């Protein structure tokens, strides 16, 4: 083995080792088992970011379908979890719309709405508007089709008006 080869391998090995150490201090795994789990997560993140960078990013369709199934079963927490896993980079307007809608449906109440969920829903909708303002859902099961309508629902739900004390309000239906 020539001196040059030793030097090159020394540089490469040192860089790899240094990268591993930097990653360990960044990821802070608690035990050896977590080292492999966190390494896998990091690799997935890097892969997703690379896909975004080179323009080949796609959502995980299986996870999206699972999310949709939970959404129709009215298990909104599980639905959101699956939607978030399907679109970790929050770049797909359709998935983000369902996440916002799940906040609306979960937070909606016949007498009063859940303000915390509505606030999260409003934030999510604002993010969706930034992503794609003209998005329109083609899901026939949803009465609200656009982010602007959804935003209006959230804002009205968060405001306290004289209309909130109208007893006929209990007769309204969830959209």
């Amino acid at each position: 083995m020539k001196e040059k080869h030793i030097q090159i391998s020394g540089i490469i090995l040192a860089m790899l080792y240094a990268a591993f150490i930097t990653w360990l201090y960044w990821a802070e795994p608690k035990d050896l088992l977590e080292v492999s789990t966190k390494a896998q997560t990091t690799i997935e993140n890097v892969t997703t970011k690379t896909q975004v960078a080179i323009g080949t990013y796609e959502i995980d369709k299986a996870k999206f379908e699972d999310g949709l199934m939970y959404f129709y079963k009215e298990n909104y927490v599980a639905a959101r979890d699956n939607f978030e896993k399907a679109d970790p980079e929050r770049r797909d307007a359709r998935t983000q719309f369902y996440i916002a809608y799940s906040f609306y449906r979960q937070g909606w109440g016949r007498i009063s709405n859940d303000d915390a969920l509505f606030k999260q829903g409003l934030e999510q909708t604002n993010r969706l508007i930034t992503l794609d303002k003209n998005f329109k859902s083609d899901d026939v099961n949803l009465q609200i089709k656009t982010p602007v309508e959804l935003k209006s629902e959230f804002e009205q739900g968060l405001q306290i008006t004289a209309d909130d004390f109208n007893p006929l309000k209990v007769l309204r239906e969830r959209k």
Partner: protein
Amino acid sequence: MSKVQSPKSKVEEDISSELSIVDGELLEVSDGEGLITERKNRLSIENKGQKTNNKEQISNRQSTILNYLFLPFIFLTVALLGGLRLGSQTSDFLFLKPPLVCLIFAAILLILFFRAGLIRFEGWFSENFSTLKNVANTTILLALFAASTQVFNALLPESGLPFWVITFCFFWTLWNNLFAEFETKKLLKSLGGLFGLAFVVKYLLLANLTAPANENWWQGIFQNPTKEAFTYLLDLPRFSPSTGYIQFFTLAFYLVGLFLLPPVLTKEKR
């Protein structure tokens, strides 16, 4: 009477006139044994030369492997272990990032290494070296810097009054050393002493003042009132005793690495 020349003698005269004169020296014909011993001597000299060349090549290769593979490995291992602590109850890994002051101390330490001749700049970097060699040498130095940073990270207490006291002591010592005349051996001895003392203070003295974590607050106060008081007053972190063992080997690796560090990397052909 005319002389009559015979045809045979005429031919001889012609041949002798055509032959050129050859200068030469007469050598004694040596016997066979003499030639053999001479050849043997020559061969043995050549073999010796080859052996010394081989030995030089092997030692050069070994020193190259030591410098470019082993030294970065040992220093980076120190960098890995220097910030590692084990949690007191579940022995979880805790990777503590070095505070800024550790980077400053490491920089001062590198200046000290250059001043004391532990590393000679002209023997590590030169325009005459190839770019690859300069880059490889830089890699070793960066690994040394990372290791130095993490050694300070390992030896400084994590928080509270002890952190400030020991940081001040380190700063005082390094600052004084910066203006002192040092030899390499003296510097290494001084560093060994300094780091050894800091290790004893942190991992023996302060660790023994820290109350164990697997007790509730009331139990701690009744069973170990002094330790609880010291832990509270000095803001001592509770780590597993294994942390001390890890840091002992970290420090040992670092000192071994410094001992193996060559002042000059110019043995090879430029």
